[in-house]
């Protein structure tokens, strides 16, 4: 399927290639309006799927609205070697200092993608190829990969094989939205075959919507069951090997909380970011997740309310306590609420008289308390 010039340009623009602003139109009046919109001088171009439009009079420069009207009227309906012009492309005319040529095409004889470039552009490229072939540079995309393999001093007889592997890796990286595509080792067999003996691929989780098939690839059988459940609930949970459960809002604050607890001599059991603006229900889910880990001896809630409201967090904690069993209730909680609605949150907690829940005013105080509680040393509420 061949595209009209303007459709091709739209495709180019979508991939970041620079093009001039323009409009596709089908009437003389629209052509004049488009010309005024993109700014004079403009070039008015017949949109037909045949070469030699310029020679046939299908491409004209217009300096003002009158000229634009006249050219549009002449070109619309024109018969260019059997192609009737029904559409015009009106774009702001470019100043030109040099005209080059560039192409990527399917080289059918070599059966490889071919990149071509010449400083002799703007004319029939076949003439250039015939008269001055040295001015039309042709390289297979693959040659770059061959260059890398050669520069890396791969054995001469496997350079081609290595180049193939590099190209395939790049394709994986690009097409699968990978952030890493790695082979180590990439082996050469005694038969001089180049083969991937290992594979390390990281796909971008944020791009999974573009790759519905990749969604099923996650190793859910070997995934930690708590991490898997957290993902389903939209919570960011990472299991660690300690015994102090951690919940906070915001990735940076939670990371920092882990560090502060470790600094106070404790061992965090998890990273759990309840996220911004979490409501009571989400907090309840988070508490349940943390308590699923049998290693937990104490839990620290570190909340600095921005969008998250401390009273909502308190309500979530109270709701969670209504549901958790005796074993959960034996685990001490240290809660630090600061920021938006902190007074209200602290009052709700105090009024609820939850067993085994201690409060702290600062992050450091909270860390020290939870470490002492996890070690079996009682702390004053």
């Amino acid at each position, binding site marked *: 399927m061949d595209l009209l010039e303007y459709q091709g340009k739209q495709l180019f623009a979508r991939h970041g290639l620079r093009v001039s602003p323009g409009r596709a139109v089908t009437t003389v009046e629209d052509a004049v309006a488009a010309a005024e919109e993109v700014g004079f001088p403009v070039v008015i171009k017949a949109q037909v799927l045949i070469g030699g439009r310029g020679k046939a009079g299908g491409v004209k420069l217009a300096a003002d609205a009158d000229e634009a009207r006249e050219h549009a009227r002449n070109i619309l309906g024109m018969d260019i070697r059997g192609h009737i012009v029904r559409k015009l492309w009106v774009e702001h005319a470019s100043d030109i200092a040099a005209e080059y040529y560039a192409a990527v095409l399917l080289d059918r004889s070599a059966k490889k993608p071919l990149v071509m470039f010449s400083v002799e552009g703007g004319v029939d490229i076949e003439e250039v190829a015939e008269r001055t072939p040295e001015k039309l540079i042709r390289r297979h995309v693959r040659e770059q990969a061959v260059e890398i393999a050669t520069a890396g001093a791969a054995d001469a007889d496997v350079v081609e094989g290595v180049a193939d592997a590099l190209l395939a890796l790049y394709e994986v990286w690009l097409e699968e*939205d990978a952030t890493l595509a790695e082979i180590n080792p990439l082996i050469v067999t005694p038969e001089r075959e180049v083969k991937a003996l290992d594979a390390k691929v990281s796909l971008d989780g944020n791009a999974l919507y573009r790759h519905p098939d990749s969604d099923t690839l996650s190793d859910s059988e070997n995934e930690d069951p708590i991490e898997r459940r957290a993902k389903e609930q939209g919570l960011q949970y990472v299991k660690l090997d300690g015994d102090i459960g951690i919940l906070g809002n*915001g*990735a*940076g*604050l939670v990371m920092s909380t882990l*560090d502060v607890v470790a600094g106070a001599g404790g061992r965090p059991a998890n990273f759990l970011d309840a996220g*911004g603006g979490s409501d009571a229900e989400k907090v309840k889910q988070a508490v349940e997740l943390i308590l699923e880990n049998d290693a937990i001896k104490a839990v620290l809630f570190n909340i600095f309310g921005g969008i998250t409201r401390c009273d909502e967090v308190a309500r979530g904690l109270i709701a969670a306590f209504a549901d958790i069993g005796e074993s959960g209730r034996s685990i001490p909680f240290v809660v630090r609420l600061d*920021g938006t609605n902190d007074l209200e949150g602290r009052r709700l907690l105090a009024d609820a008289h939850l067993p085994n829940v201690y409060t702290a005013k600062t992050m450091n105080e909270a860390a020290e308390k939870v470490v002492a509680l996890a070690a079996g040393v009682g702390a004053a509420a």
Partner: protein
Amino acid sequence: MSVLVDEHTRLAVAGITGREGSFHTLNNRRYGTNVVGGVTPGKGGQDVEGIPVFDSWEQAVAECQPNTAMIFVPPRFAADSILEAAAAGVELVIAITEGIPAHDELRVYNLLKRDHPGGRSIRLIGPNCPGILSPGKANVGIIPASFFTQGNVGVVSRSGTLTYQIGNEIARAGFGCSTIVGIGGDPVPGSSFVDVLELFQADEQTELVVLSGEIGGSAEEEAAEYIAERMSKPVVAYIAGFTAPAGKQMGHAGAIVSGSAGTAAAKAQALEARGVRVGRTPTETAEIAVEVLGRASLPAA
């Protein structure tokens, strides 16, 4: 003065008709930010509590001349919205959206650099960031403004809540902020620590900068180099993620230790080797900042 946003900010918001978009836009307006318009394709002609909505950035720029764009649209549309705002002539684009694919961020970053060389004519902050607050002047994004007052401290951070934590401790000690800039937690942020440090160095109001970094990438190491070579103002740093295991993404897409690269220890070491004091906790960081400010006997504004 302050950096990036102030009383001259004219803000337009992509995604203004969404739930989060409208909530935070109105919040920003209540703070005093001059919100001039919004963009939601297909909803042109409507308004959000008096703020006119346009179908495209081109129209919004033509009708109400915003100089700052805030991006609140879902991840799959965000890259195009950023590029469209930049192409329409908006100088500063602040992308709040979380979850934009890394390849899209690469494309946006390189196109902006190519089309606006020097990086001065157009600036992208974020994505996946809480925005920018210049206390007393303008708030663009989701930073809770009530914790901050106007003053001499510049804050630049990869994390939102951690910024509030440190900023609030500095505020309780009686010091205010010139501007708080969240550069975001993604692997390819539009602006780096160095970009923002450069602005703070040039800003008259800013006398000390607090830099809050975290695991992943090498932005903190690059900042260390810049601070040693180019900055006369004191910088106090904090790094989160000393206890993060390698290979695990800690909430932010960019917060991951890959092999031995991007560890908190290496970052703190790079900063300290260049003479930057690094707090071991957010509280200690705020205390160091307050100590340095006190020694310079800077008045709280």
